[in-house]
């Protein structure tokens, strides 16, 4: 599983954000624009080392990797070790969910979207950040040694494919910011 690589190279993963500060800040700013003001029931699925949840004020994170989850906890996030496809949270418990550069590492994003739909309150928001297939970012990272380790087994989707999967799992797309091969989509649970 691709998550083993995050366990083994957790330090390298976290360093990427220091070594690519401009890209990280640009992604963070774009997510901040579409992510509603997080309250005490906001969750990041695949919180990693907490590089997005901490500055955005998301209090809760789900993460399969023990090493990355410990880093997020040190950044002040309440971490639950678990998988996006089997979220250990009760129905209708979360006001909003953030998921950044996660769907490319899942075998299938549909079970994860279904689980997020289940845990959101009616009208709750899912904000997704993802690298677009054959976009600028995907092409660049595949030629970059450090990130290649994490992305070599990734499966990328087009913005249209992601919108179709969201529609199929009960979300309506509210806003799309698709630029330079990285998309941010805000979707609402509407049924």
């Amino acid at each position, binding site marked *: 599983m691709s998550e083993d690589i995050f366990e083994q190279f957790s330090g390298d993963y976290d360093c990427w954000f220091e070594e690519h500060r401009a890209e990280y800040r640009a992604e963070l700013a774009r997510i901040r624009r579409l992510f509603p003001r997080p309250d005490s*029931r906001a969750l990041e699925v695949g919180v990693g080392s907490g590089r997005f949840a901490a500055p955005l004020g998301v209090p809760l994170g789900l993460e*399969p990797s*023990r090493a990355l*989850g*410990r880093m997020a*906890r040190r950044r002040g996030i*309440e*971490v*639950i*070790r*678990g*998988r996006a496809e*089997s*979220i*250990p*949270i*009760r*129905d209708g*418990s*979360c006001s909003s969910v953030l998921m950044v550069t996660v769907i490319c590492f899942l075998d299938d994003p549909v079970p994860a979207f279904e689980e997020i739909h289940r845990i959101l309150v009616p009208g709750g928001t899912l904000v997704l950040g993802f690298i677009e297939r054959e976009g600028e970012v995907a092409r660049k990272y595949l030629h970059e040694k450090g990130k290649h380790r994490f992305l070599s087994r990734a499966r990328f989707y087009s913005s249209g494919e992601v919108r179709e999967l969201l529609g199929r799992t009960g979300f309506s797309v509210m806003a799309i910011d698709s630029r330079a091969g990285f998309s941010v989509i805000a979707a609402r649970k509407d049924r």
Partner: protein
Amino acid sequence: MRKNLMEILCCPVCKGELELTVTEESGEEVLEGTLRCAACSVDYPISEGIPNLLPKTACED
């Protein structure tokens, strides 16, 4: 994990209730302990303040 996280946690497999057993705590923070799903007969550990709720079935124990 804070004890009030129990309000939203459930079993990752059957989504049923979990029973918390605390072996080490600091105020409202549970540092070590167990979350048991009676329906699945599975114990999920809490270690260094992080509950491990990666899905598992009784036969994996």
